């Protein structure tokens, strides 16, 4: 160990005093990045490393799989026991055979390629294998195998070790079905520095998004190019499936409306949005279109809300192609804003998949075109999708039929022999498993903040497909709605007996379960049960909800079970470090309170408006009810208001029993629409990026440190 000279400490002391500020940390961070980036690429880390990756010869471990040798000397891949928590992300197979005895197709991909929500009963790999088997006829049915290497959530970078393993597996055909998670990028000093520079110029709208998108596109291109290198080396043919999105129905959550904009643009955007909603309600489509165009001009294409409004106009006018274009723009809008959104394959990733695949001579199965050809008069929606990107059985069948046709010549099969679909039962899909997948879709849509109509649709469809699913629905709502951890509830054990439910809901980390305010799902289930003659199940759930949530006493409304309708509302929509208080990225914060026997209730709220808030921003006035300060409503009726205050403020207010309903009550806090200061937020974001922390990109309208509702327990019995 070299001991620096003690005399140098007088210099470091003076230097540390000069650097004793955010600016000092920024200077040091920049110097460190400079040092790292000036070093050879291997020290800089990040994309350059993965781009230059050269797959090793022989068997290499990848994902959960490690090479092993059976007693008879044959080589196999087996699952690594220490990664058992990750097994459910991959195909439910005990081992993969390395030795090749048949023509081999390998399917690589993400959750869509896993058949998410049908997995492990039905998977695209099984459907593809069946279609190829049918095409091969009785004599050739066993001559082709499909190895399922799809892993949920896989990013472009994470594909590299799987590609490396292909050398040993030596497939004849490689099918790649991925792209929905490729916006998850590694954050190297170089990437961070590019984002910092982007902030300094234009902020989020435009430049940041373009920088981020360019990086995402580069990652997509690199992934396809790496695949080509491997395929060329082993002489395999490649087919790439370009993913499609549920354009028709999937909507971002309310908090993810628009990134922070400069004050004048933010205020104008909020007003235009408010007016556009009103015009839409009134059916004034010209006005909506005009306002949506204004909004897009203000947000520079970073908001799905403005694009969706425009799409709505086109849909109401019957202009399907224009609506599709607007909805594609809505899908793409949040990609690159560094705020959470559900997985999706943006246009520029789709284009990269097409362009690079064509360049390398790969077959391209373009799902947007496949679905459009199959249903030319409708936008892709619940017919093909269970949620945002995961396919229904019909969607899987269409995708795999197109894939089978594309790859069949490479397997010496006639494309015409590939069936357009396979009977569900031939791939193991019974009414029971179809129904369970549909109900899981209801849960998944609810956990991703979708509206009651879509959730209710999947509940009812599940009951129609297989009425006995009612018991499964009751069990699943039971453990979701009880206050005890999911895994500790009796009903959880019952539900987990089903492999599809277990694969989706059996979290390997028992602390990973999140209690949500899932009232939309629970009420949808209860409603569907009643509609389908399962009244006893509905009653059972109503009683349970009253018992679990309806008791008097003190309720912490900050708990996710009282406020979070989705996983993101429970955690955060942004990627910055968690805070000790709640930030509202929507103009209204919603809380739920269940009371069986309503009584006098005292609400206690510690709140403030975001730092830098100015209540007198003229552009904001009239946009929403909270514009003159804080307004709290209970079941739509105002029960409290307060003047704007940007320091923590303790407020208490009492409501009469008559203001509360027996059952579910909704408390809303309406914030002024001015939101957080643009300058302050951009400065904070820049500093964070320079210090290696991702910024909070969404505007904050209000902040809550604590919020409780207390109804003295008088010993009154439950209703």
């Amino acid at each position, binding site marked *: 160990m070299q001991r620096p000279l003690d005399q140098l*400490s007088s210099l470091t002391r003076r*230097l540390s005093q000069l650097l004793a500020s955010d600016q000092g940390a920024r200077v040091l961070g920049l110097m460190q990045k400079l040092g790292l980036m000036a070093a050879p690429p291997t020290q800089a880390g990040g994309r350059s490393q993965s781009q230059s990756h050269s797959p090793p010869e022989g068997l290499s471990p990848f994902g959960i799989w490690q090479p092993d040798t059976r007693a008879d000397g044959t080589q196999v891949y087996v699952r690594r026991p220490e990664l058992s928590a990750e097994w459910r992300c991959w195909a439910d197979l005990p081992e993969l055979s390395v030795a090749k005895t048949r023509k081999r197709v390998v399917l690589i991909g993400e959750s869509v390629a896993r058949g998410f929500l049908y997995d492990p009963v039905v998977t695209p790999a099984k459907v593809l294998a069946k279609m190829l088997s049918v095409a091969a006829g009785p004599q050739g049915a066993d001559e082709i195998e499909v190895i399922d290497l799809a892993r949920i959530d896989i990013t472009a970078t994470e594909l590299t070790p799987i590609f490396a393993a292909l050398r040993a597996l030596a497939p004849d055909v490689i099918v790649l079905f991925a792209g929905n998670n490729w916006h998850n990028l590694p954050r190297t000093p170089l990437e961070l520095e590019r984002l910092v520079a982007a902030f300094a110029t234009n902020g989020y709208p435009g430049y940041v998004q373009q920088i981020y998108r360019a990086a995402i596109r580069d990652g997509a291109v690199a992934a396809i190019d790496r695949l080509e290198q491997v395929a060329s080396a082993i002489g395999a043919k490649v087919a790439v499936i370009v993913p499609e999105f549920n354009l028709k129905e999937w909507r971002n959550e309310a908090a993810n409306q628009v990134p922070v904009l400069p004050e004048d643009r933010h205020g104008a955007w909020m007003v235009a949005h408010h007016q556009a909603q009103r015009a839409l309600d009134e059916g004034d489509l010209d006005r909506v279109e005009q306002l949506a165009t204004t909004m897009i001009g203000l947000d520079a294409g970073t908001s799905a809300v403005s694009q969706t409004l425009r799409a709505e106009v086109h849909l109401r006018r019957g202009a399907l192609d224009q609506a599709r274009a607007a909805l594609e723009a809505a899908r793409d809008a949040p990609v690159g804003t560094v705020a959470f959104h559900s997985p999706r394959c943006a246009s520029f990733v789709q284009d990269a998949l097409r362009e690079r695949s064509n360049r390398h001579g790969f077959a391209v199965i373009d799902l947007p075109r496949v679905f459009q050809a199959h249903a030319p008069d409708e936008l892709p929606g619940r017919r093909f999708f269970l949620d945002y990107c995961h396919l229904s059985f019909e969607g899987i069948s269409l995708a795999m039929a197109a894939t089978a046709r594309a790859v069949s010549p490479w397997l010496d099969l006639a494309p015409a022999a590939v069936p357009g679909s396979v009977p569900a039962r031939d791939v193991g899909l019974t009414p029971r498993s179809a129904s369970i997948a549909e109900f899981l879709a209801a849960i998944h849509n609810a956990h991703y903040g979708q509206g009651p109509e879509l959730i209710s649709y999947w509940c009812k469809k599940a009951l129609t497909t297989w009425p006995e699913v009612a018991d499964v629905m009751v069990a699943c709502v039971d453990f979701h709605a009880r206050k005890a951890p999911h895994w500790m509830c009796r009903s959880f054990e019952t539900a987990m007996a089903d492999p599809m439910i277990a694969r989706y809901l059996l979290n390997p980390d028992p602390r990973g379960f999140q209690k949500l305010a899932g009232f939309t799902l629970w009420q949808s289930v209860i409603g569907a049960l009643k509609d389908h003659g399962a009244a006893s199940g509905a009653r059972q759930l109503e009683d349970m909800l009253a018992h679990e949530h309806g008791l008097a006493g003190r309720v912490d409304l900050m708990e996710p079970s009282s406020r979070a309708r989705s996983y993101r509302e429970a955690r955060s929509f942004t990627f910055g470090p968690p805070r000790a208080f709640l930030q509202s990225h929507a103009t209204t914060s919603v809380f739920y309170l269940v009371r069986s026997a309503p009584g006098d209730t005292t609400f206690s709220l510690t709140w403030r408006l975001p730092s830098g808030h100015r209540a007198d921003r003229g552009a904001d006035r009239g946009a929403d009810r909270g514009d003159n300060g804080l307004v709290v409503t209970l079941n739509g009726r105002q029960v409290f208001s307060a003047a704007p205050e940007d320091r*923590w403020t303790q407020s208490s207010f009492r409501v009469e029993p008559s203001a509360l309903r027996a059952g579910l009550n909704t408390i809303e806090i309406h914030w002024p629409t001015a939101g957080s200061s643009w300058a302050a937020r951009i400065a904070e974001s820049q500093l964070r990026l320079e210090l290696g922390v991702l910024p909070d990109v969404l505007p904050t309208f209000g902040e809550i440190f604590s919020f409780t509702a207390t109804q003295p327990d008088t010993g009154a019995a439950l209703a």
Partner: protein
Amino acid sequence: MSLNIIGISAHFHDAACCLLRDGKLVAAVQEERFSRIKHDPTIPRAAFGYCLEQGGITIADVDCVAYYEDPVVKLDRQLWMGLPQLPSLAPEALFRLDPARAEREIRELLGFEGEIQLVPHHLSHAASSFCFSGFDDAAILVVDAVGEWATTSLGRASGSSLEILDEVRFPDSLGLLYSTITSYLGFEVNDAEYKVMGLAPYGQPIYLDKLMQLVESLPNGKFRLNPEYFDFMRGRRMYSEALCDLLGAPPRAAESEIPQFAKDVARSLQVLLEKLLLQLANHLHRIVPSQNLCMAGGVALNCVANAAVLRDGPFDRLFVQPAAGDAGGALGAAAMAHITRSGQRPEVGRLEHVYLGPRYSSNEVAALLEATPLAFADFRGRERELLATVADRLADGKVIGWFHGGMEFGPRALGARSIIADPRRDEMRDRINALVKMREAFRPFAPAVLAEAASAHFDLDHPSPFMLETCQVKSAIRLPAITHVDGSARVQTVDAKVSPRFHALISEFGRRTGCPILLNTSFNLRGEPIVCSPMDALLCFLRSDIDFLVLEDFVIDRAGVPGAWTGWYRSTGQSARAISDIVYTLF
């Protein structure tokens, strides 16, 4: 109006938060207990929320947040240690050279708007000990790895006055010396130093002469490390090849068999540490001739050395704050901020207990259990029967997970989140190691003894409520599970006024067996933080082979655990660590 001060330690390891209200310690807890990430160093967000809730206040009621070190002085050291690169480009240094981070995160992530007071690291340690010692005056000895620059501080305190008189500066550090040998012996740094302390009695100090080459004694008790044998400044490993050459053996691989050589090195290290601490204590007494000594800092958790300092040194009384490591710095920072504002010393009396963390009522536990298929016995309103039942099982040789009252602050389980068993049984140490702790067989467990019976069984003439002292076992009862190879034990004395239920349980056990002593070890799986909530306790129970779990007034038999739970979560315990266990993260 009350004076509410929040103390915070963070951004190094063992982040913690406490609330001092009008000088009284209301709440204190480490962030790792909530996040379940061992040694979690992040700004203590959940712990902050807990402290406010426990105090019945909101963030608007907090007068001051006191932070446990001066980041600017720390940056000075960080810049110096990275030389000749400026700034260091080591991966662990990236974005860590950030003197504004503490204040920025207290503002941005905790949301605090009021005054922030930065308290030097060793002054925080000093105050954390003296202000809760009950002494009117004391000499103060702080010894750790490093804070800002100081690694060892000598000070004096009287009333509301504390001052640091002298210090040893980085990189000359007894903490880093101990961690270096810990790493060389194949144990985790910043965590497993106590294992080396536990290993020492199995060896002979035959390497003392060699280890003395690692450190040069200087006048006034000071010392200087020989840089030839260390490598911790480069952030890759703690020791150099020269150390291996000196000791004539390669470093021991983690988890491998422990050879006699390692035991002898551990013993030699322990002797060396005690020698150096005694030199410091003797010098300190010369400049601060008090009868009382207050110790703090991570090295003060070495209870064997503490006993030597008290036994062989010039002081009559010793107080070690039970969270003597960095977590406890939060207490000292808050205490200093209290003195700044009120001019008064907080907590005039001696700290009686550290049950300062979350507690859960029996009704809360009932609500949790009643939703489950778990079989359990409900003893609400029947404490005597509960204690009789548990004592019967203990006497039968069963191992019990014991969860009662507020969680302990600091690294020791003291009867609130403990695994307890009969200390008389030969097989008990191995059994508990196999059932739950999965730890090295050489390490002894500690006894919890009725305070009034302690002197009959241990060579101890004063209370030891925090398990921070070792003494010789002199009991007429054979106590193999808690007696170390050298006949010593690390004793917790249990006072009926402070821990009434735990005291009553030991009493019940004593009535049945004649042994007023229980084996007491922390309620956690290896590599995980001590359990905090009833669910944490249930998960630990589920993942281990503990025979019974007592959650407040409820007793759960392993036979009552649903088979499916075991299928899902058996052996799924994960060791999530927030800091390196290879090298001390000095950035």
